[in-house]
């Protein structure tokens, strides 16, 4: 049985910014954007689940984020993940890619054995594509980026087709290896109704502390930690101590890069010539462009 880890991230949906999510001054209202499962991390999870179906595997999904990131772990369970772990700690906040990869690698070190780590090529909030290779470096294992397809897998090695600029490359690597997955690699499955019915009750440690005592008293079978663990419904939360991380290397103090300034992109209106949409208008435009040596 292969042990597979999938690293995922909850991100604000930056893909379809509409007027609803824009402030009056033309800037983005980040809080109005829905929090979603980073799209290419769904491709990474799918890659793991395909291996699980074909070869047999235990799939563990890990995310770092605020307690609300438990939502994407539930979504992972709906799709067929076996275990989920939420790395959450106020001291992780403000981490850049170096600190994030350190925290993730410390959590992975706590999991004794793994054969493959999958993660999405990049996250849509930052588009950096840095955390994958950095986790691989911290764990001192090889990395394969831009995976398109797993061609072959056995106990010792994996053969991967990957996309490079203007072409493809087929690579063979020893296990364990970290692999980043492209969005063209597969079509992520929908959550299974059956799994959803079961795992929508999955609850994280922080969420459990928010459940009122009355409710806990009234439904002990739903909210007792013991029963939750038994039914695989407890979403494990690990903090800095749990993963034995050095506080200096986490969060802001562990992040060499600082955001110094942010400028919002606003559309600058140019002086626009309106061209009548008829033969005469178009002819005049083309003649003007030719005269100005633009075409």
């Amino acid at each position, binding site marked *: 049985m292969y042990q597979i880890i999938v690293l995922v991230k909850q991100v604000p949906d*930056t*893909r*379809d*910014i509409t007027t609803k999510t824009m402030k009056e001054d033309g*800037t*983005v209202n980040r809080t109005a954007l829905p929090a979603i499962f980073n799209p290419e991390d769904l491709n990474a999870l799918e890659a793991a689940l395909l291996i699980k179906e074909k070869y047999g595997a235990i799939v563990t999904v890990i995310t770092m984020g605020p307690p609300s990131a438990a939502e994407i772990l539930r979504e992972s369970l709906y799709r067929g993940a076996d275990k989920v772990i939420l790395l959450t700690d106020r001291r992780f906040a403000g981490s850049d*890619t*170096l600190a994030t*990869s350190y925290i993730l690698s410390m959590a992975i070190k706590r999991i004794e054995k793994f054969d493959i780590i999958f993660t999405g090529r990049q996250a*849509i*909030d*930052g*588009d*950096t594509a840095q955390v994958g*290779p*950095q986790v691989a*470096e911290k764990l001192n294992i*090889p*990395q*394969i*980026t*831009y995976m398109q397809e797993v061609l072959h897998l056995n106990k010792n090695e994996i053969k991967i087709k990957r*996309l*490079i*600029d*203007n*072409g*493809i*490359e*087929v*690579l*063979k*690597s020893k296990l364990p290896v970290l692999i980043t997955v492209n969005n063209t690699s597969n079509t992520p499955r929908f959550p299974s109704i059956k799994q959803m019915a079961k795992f929508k009750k999955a609850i994280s440690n922080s969420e459990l502390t928010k459940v009122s005592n009355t409710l806990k008293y009234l439904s002990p079978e739903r909210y007792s930690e013991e029963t939750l663990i038994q039914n695989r419904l407890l979403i494990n939360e690990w903090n800095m101590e749990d993963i034995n991380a050095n506080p200096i290397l986490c969060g802001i103090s562990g*992040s*060499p*890069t*600082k*955001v*110094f*300034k*942010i*400028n919002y*992109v606003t*559309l*600058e*209106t*140019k*002086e*626009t*010539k*309106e*061209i009548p*949409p008829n*033969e005469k208008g*178009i002819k005049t*435009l*083309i003649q003007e462009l*030719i005269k100005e040596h*633009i*075409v």
Partner: protein
Amino acid sequence: MNKKQIWVYIENTNKDIADVSKELLSKGKELAVRLSSSNQKTELCAIWLGSGIKKNVQPLLDMRCDKVYIVDHPELKDFKALPYTTNLVENIKKHNPYIVLFGATSIGRELAPRIASAVRCGLTADCTDLQIGDIEFKTNKQAYKDLLLQIRPAFGGNIIATIITPEMHPQMATVRPGVMKNLEILPTGTGKGEVITLEPKIKQEDFIVEIIQKIQEEKKVNLIGAQIVVSGGIGVGNKENFKLIKDLAQNIGAEVGATRAAVDSGWIHKDHQVGQTGVTVRPRLYIACGISGSIQHLAGMQESKQIIAINKDPDAPIMKIANYKINGDLNRIIPMMIKAYKGKE
């Protein structure tokens, strides 16, 4: 006093060094001149890994490098993340450059993060501009002189962030191909920098990933360097109509571009995608057909010198940044344009 150094990683293509490496040398020279004028002599250095490259260094000297560091070994013929990381990390630690720049290509974006992690320094991905500046934080009164300002779009292109690495140097960044302008190079053979051969470090454990097969085609689409781009968006309607875009491009000698939506719809190959997740273009003329102008798309083309927008929706965002707007159906307008252009003589 030791000279400061700016290092540019030189990326190999099948035949030559990558265009983005040349662009970075131009930008690197500009930064070196700026730093030298401010406090301390700064050298522009190329760092080049490969096999049999020693004899080909003159073009780098002609690109005004003060020093060219080379690591030349048969095992370094093809790019492989692990041995390339080992050799670069060792030499970055030894020479301690002030700034290290990589192209944001598939190679640069795979290599730079692994190096930054090993060196334990910051890294900013996909920069679209680099500047030198003095920074003072009002909150704790800390001031830094001559930092590299790493400027990049973030948040899906909705914001432009300026990132700095105040303490843990080197300051490292990857830079988008096509955004830095090429400086004039010296006449062939006249560049007089120093060539320094570094000792390769070849460790067996760095070769546990094997290349079984590699198929790389010549780049068919040259959007980045195109002077005129005709682009189609979702408003084109279907694959059949997209031929109109290609027709217009062919007639006026333009390259074909597309939005992500058009690419995702399967109307055209991803190589043609312009925007935040595609390529950045800055042509003399950009003709946007059936493109509403999402911020992600605008991020890749708004520096075009002239923009013509053809759209049925007079309020589409693209109309605001266009120099010429044509409010109408592209299926009617484009044939008129072709006809008008053909009839020019």
